[in-house]
């Protein structure tokens, strides 16, 4: 980000300087405003899900799930850290079900634990899996199509699922192939 941020920022600022100097500050302010509203929306959904996950934790369900998934997840992330794998597994499940806002807090926890254990490979893998959209149902796209008066809004389901499955596999494969050999 320390490379991408300055490059895009400087080019965009230069364009503003030449073509529209008055538009620069409003653009930045819009960004800041969006950050503020988004944070509130995130706060609202984190309240729900962090509460939900705590209940999952204390009822023993999370541990139960983690025990069952320990082997495949351990192989995927090349990690034996039970706590981190538990978060990562729940993150993937939440992604798959498309629970809005739920994957993020889990993903952050898992990433922090992986990084603390100096397992950059696992952090990369989790990020790429999240960033290639492991969703079963493209709910937003379907809802928007329905709102725009589509005759069969859900007919994009299959192509979307196939495309996103392929991209997740390719992404995971690339992370695996480019890993640093220990």
């Amino acid at each position: 980000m320390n490379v991408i941020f300055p490059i895009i920022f400087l080019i965009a600022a230069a364009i503003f300087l030449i073509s529209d100097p008055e538009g620069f500050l409003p653009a930045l302010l819009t960004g800041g405003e969006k950050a503020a509203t988004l944070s509130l929306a995130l706060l609202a959904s984190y309240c729900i899900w962090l509460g939900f996950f705590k209940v999952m934790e204390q009822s023993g369900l999370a541990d139960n799930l983690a025990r069952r998934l320990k082997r495949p997840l351990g192989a995927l992330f090349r990690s034996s850290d039970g706590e981190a794998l538990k978060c990562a597994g729940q993150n993937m499940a939440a992604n798959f079900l498309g629970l809005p806002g739920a994957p993020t807090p889990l993903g952050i926890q898992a990433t922090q634990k992986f990084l603390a254990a100096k397992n950059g490979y696992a952090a990369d893998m989790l990020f790429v899996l999240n960033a290639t959209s492991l969703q079963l149902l493209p709910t937003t796209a379907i809802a928007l199509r329905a709102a725009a008066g589509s005759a069969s809004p859900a007919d994009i389901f299959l192509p979307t699922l196939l495309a996103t499955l392929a991209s997740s596999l390719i992404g995971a494969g690339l992370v695996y192939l480019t890993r640093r050999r220990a």
Partner: protein
Amino acid sequence: MKWTALLLPALFLALFGYALFKKVRLYDCFTEGVKGALPLVCSLFPYLAAILMLSELFEQSGLSAAITQALSPVFSFLGIPKEIGGLVLLKPFSGSGSTALLSELFTTYGADSYIARCAAVAYGSSETVFYISAVYFAGSKKNLAKPIAIALFANLLSVILGCFLCRIM
């Protein structure tokens, strides 16, 4: 797709029922979890602000439109309709921006047109890569060039594949 709406209440009902069965003090436990929400948002806020300002500059300066223009031969070579080039480019930066763009494409071309279907698939099969990287790696000193490059590449492939599938399905 009504049954998807059933998922959430059913999930909560099942978990809370199970928790009560396991004699969890539900109220104490739930509030204990919520306690973490505010610190989490606070820790994410600076990165969110920087990324969203950047995506605003990217869009409003016309840089995004210029790159889309420049890349349109590449897109058409890859089988991506040039009308959705802007969406493909914007999606890694901004979820809300690309959502707005998607519904704009639906109104312009009709929700059942080939372009709209491609756009919907492109939207649904790719992710806000920069945003996710900012949030997941918030505050870490890790070199992110490789994972971001892989994620962007995989997302591009899924758009190409999605447009192709829309043509035959």
